């Protein structure tokens, strides 16, 4: 379980203080899927970075599995079971897909284990395992690898920041299947997905709407989703790709 208590993040911009996250209180229960939505620039990614330790909160506490992790660094939080798929995947030079999966899983992976994570995101292991994680991969490929890396973590809290962005060929059906499998998975754990997509909002246990750094609304999916339909916080997209069925990149 993750608890954010009165969490704030202020930065100085041109000498003026700007509050990007304002007094956020949020509980993410075990084995629940929370979808965070809200307008661009509202602070969703920042909130995810505060949880992962990439940005440090300026006040408030973060409690994870009963432990106060507010003062812990990125590595320590990762080791305690927090995984984070970036909105913009990072590129490297020389580091291969298999290297990243190995680091993520924390052990020597054999080919079939690595294959499992890659095929879950619709990539043929044979073609991708030895690929370098650099600009030779498309945005969609990088995004899928980013998701596969988080799957390989097997973490107790997995955060995905706009996982559907840039994934054009691969249908939502497959992406959603990945999240549902994670939720059903034997390991349990909670999932936070930042997304505007109605199809993803639809599989949420709870929806949180963030605007101007504050929680505008939160509650069970059935209560919150109807209020969002037709707004930019619940976009109906990729019908075409969906109709064509999932296409794996092979």
């Amino acid at each position: 379980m993750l608890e954010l208590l009165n969490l704030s993040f202020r930065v100085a911009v041109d000498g003026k203080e700007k509050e990007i996250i304002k007094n956020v209180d949020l509980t993410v229960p075990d084995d629940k899927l929370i979808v965070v939505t809200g307008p661009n620039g509202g602070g969703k990614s920042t909130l995810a970075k505060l949880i992962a330790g990439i940005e440090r909160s300026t006040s408030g506490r973060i409690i994870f599995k009963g432990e106060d992790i507010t003062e812990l660094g990125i590595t320590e939080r990762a080791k305690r079971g927090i995984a984070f798929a970036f909105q913009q995947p990072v590129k490297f030079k020389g580091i291969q897909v298999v290297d990243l999966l190995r680091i993520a899983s924390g052990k020597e992976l054999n080919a079939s284990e690595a294959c499992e994570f890659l095929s879950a995101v619709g990539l043929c292991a044979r073609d991708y395992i030895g690929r370098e994680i650099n600009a030779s991969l498309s945005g969609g490929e990088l995004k899928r690898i980013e998701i596969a890396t988080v799957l390989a973590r097997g973490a107790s809290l997995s955060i995905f920041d706009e996982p559907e962005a840039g994934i054009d060929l691969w249908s939502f059906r497959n992406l959603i299947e990945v999240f549902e499998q994670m939720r059903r998975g034997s390991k349990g754990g909670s999932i936070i997905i930042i997304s505007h997509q109605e199809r993803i909002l639809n599989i949420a246990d709870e929806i949180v709407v963030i605007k101007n750094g504050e929680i505008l609304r939160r509650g069970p999916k059935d209560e919150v989703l109807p209020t969002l339909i037709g707004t930019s916080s619940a976009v109906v997209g990729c019908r075409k790709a969906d109709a064509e069925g999932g296409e794996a990149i092979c």
Partner: protein
Amino acid sequence: MLKLDEIQKRLLAEVADLHAVPEGAYNIRSNSHAAGRQSTANIEITPKSDVPGIDIRIKPGTKNESVHIPVVLTESGLKEVVYNDFYIGEGADVVIVAGCGIDNCGNQDSQHDGVHRFFVGKNARIRYVEKHYGSGSGSGKRILNPGTEVYQDEGSIVEMEMVQIKGVDDTERTTSAELAAGAKLIVRERLMTHDDQRAISTYVVSLNGEGSSADVVSRSVAKDKSFQKFDAKIVGNAPCHGHTECDSIIMDGGRILAVPGLEANDLDAELVHEAAIGKIAGEQLVKLMTLGLTEQQAEEQIINGFLK
């Protein structure tokens, strides 16, 4: 292997991946003496009579054979200049593994200057691998100054892989190449310097024949207070393609000077130079840390990948 102690064997493993007597032709030089030499039916190795060094003659058409010519120095204060000439016959296709390891436990400088000349026949192909490695806790420096001259006849292909990752205090590498029509040169240099080390690498590649091409790529990391200079010049004297690239990471107080040099003396010479120097991208560190690595482990992974 004959007449080699444990340190010498360890150096051989580092620079030439040799754990036993190699297959094929070889010449192992240890503390200025030949510790072992073998020719084969197609590859003849003979010592020079006027200066230290050897001549390696590879018969035309020789395929799938290799030559190992590692050098190890373990006596502190040893300074040597060695001349090795390779004559590669027409149409041959061979792998040449050189490499030099210095272990210096004493307080005098140890130095090996290897001058290698390659005369590559028509349509011949070689892959040349050269690793440098230094170890030993003495205050004496480990110095390696390789000089390489490559003369490529028509249609020949030379691939050079130069690696210096650890322990060499001072290096001045000069490489020159002259390419006839249709010849191709590919250089991959990987370099890491640390502490007070200094490494200078200078290339002059002359593309003299029509359709010749060169691709010289250096990836390097300068740590601590080390200094590197990468000076790569390509001269296009005919319709040709030339590309040099220097991609470097600086850490701590490391310094790197990249000197691009392109000279086009023919209207159809196409020459490109790329250079990028910078510290490790913060987002790369952050990404690996979110996977559970410490900052230091993340740094190691990034450097290892970069130099792979």
